């Protein structure tokens, strides 16, 4: 068994050790990502990644989530994985690259979307005359329109929060969606509201008139 803190070994180093040693078993990971605490397992067969599982996702989205852990713990447990169905075919360097590029995308997305717990409203003001939307974007719009957060939509569609955020970024740029606030992911209640109450704007109108 291989066990330790990601302060002492980077996740890249741990993956290399398992891969180079052609190990078979389960790598348990637990720690902080830019999207909150994550916990899950990556399954290896002869040093190759075959599947992953978190509380939220399975397969590639789960790996992307787990590879974004920067601070936390790991434990490699050698065990038989013949019961695990292969869902991942990418090599470890490709998976690391994928996770890194998704994190880079998130850095850009953050300009328009402040959090994966953001809530949106549909808007029709100022949208272009013709818009082409993919089936996935339709699903995302429909779920966000019901008041779900990006995180909740990602769970429903088994997509990573970054992939959903990327689509949302485009929809916000097209002015189809507008961020209106943020929910507490644990309590499911709105904790931050963007903008101002309508009554404030009306009073400001009146105040300007009197100036």
């Amino acid at each position, binding site marked *: 068994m291989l066990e330790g803190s990601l302060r002492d070994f980077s996740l890249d180093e741990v993956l290399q050790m398992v891969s180079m040693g052609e190990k078979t078993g389960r790598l348990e990971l637990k720690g902080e990502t830019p999207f909150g605490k994550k916990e899950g397992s990556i399954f290896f067969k002869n040093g190759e990644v075959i599947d992953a599982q978190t509380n939220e996702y399975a397969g590639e989205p789960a790996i992307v989530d787990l590879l974004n852990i920067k601070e936390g713990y790991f434990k490699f447990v050698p065990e038989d994985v013949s019961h695990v169905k292969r869902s991942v075919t990418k090599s470890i360097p490709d998976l690391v690259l994928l996770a890194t590029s998704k994190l880079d995308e998130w850095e850009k997305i953050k300009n328009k979307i402040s959090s994966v717990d953001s809530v949106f409203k549909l*808007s029709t003001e*100022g949208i272009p005359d013709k818009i082409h939307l993919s089936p996935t974007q339709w699903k995302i719009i429909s779920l966000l329109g019901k008041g779900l957060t990006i995180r909740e939509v990602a769970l429903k569609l088994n997509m990573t929060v970054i992939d959903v955020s990327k689509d949302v970024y485009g929809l916000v740029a097209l002015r189809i969606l507008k*961020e209106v606030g943020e929910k507490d992911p644990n309590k499911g209640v709105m904790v931050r509201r963007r*903008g*101002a109450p309508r009554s404030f704007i009306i009073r400001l109108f009146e*105040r300007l008139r009197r*100036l």
Partner: protein
Amino acid sequence: MKKYKIIISGPFAAGKTTFIQTITEIAPISTEAKTTKSDETKVKDSTTVAMDFGRITIDGENVLHIFGTPGQFRFNYMWSILGKDALGIVVIIDSGAEDTFEDAKDMINFFRVKTDAPILVALNQFDGKNKVDEEEIRKILNLPKWIPVVECNAKDKESVKGVLTKLLGLILAQGNVY
């Protein structure tokens, strides 16, 4: 006290500081520094380097803060900082300063990418200068139809009130109101 903010932006020497001075109820706070670049010293002696600040109190619980950004692209980190969570953005353009239109275009695009706040273009009319009209500036700046253009005189209180009233209408229609 709940604080809300709007942003007054625009290229160098477009009239942003004057706009805020005209409408604020407090003595405006400015962060001016001596201009050092030769092309800028020809236009004015000092320039905003961090921000201008004005205020309109609504009642005992609500206040509107008016932030003016620096005009030069080299200070664009302040545009991001000030633009965060703004209710709306006014981009002031000197209607006679054709050499600044390209900067205005970059600035509008910057805010379109960085925020989802409604944007209004205010064409500031300086005396004795040739000026462009709304149709021309729309073409030059390649403005989408959701960004309106209004004429204004940054020194005239009624004119400034007119711009802000138009912006409030936009915020109600396009902005984050609940």
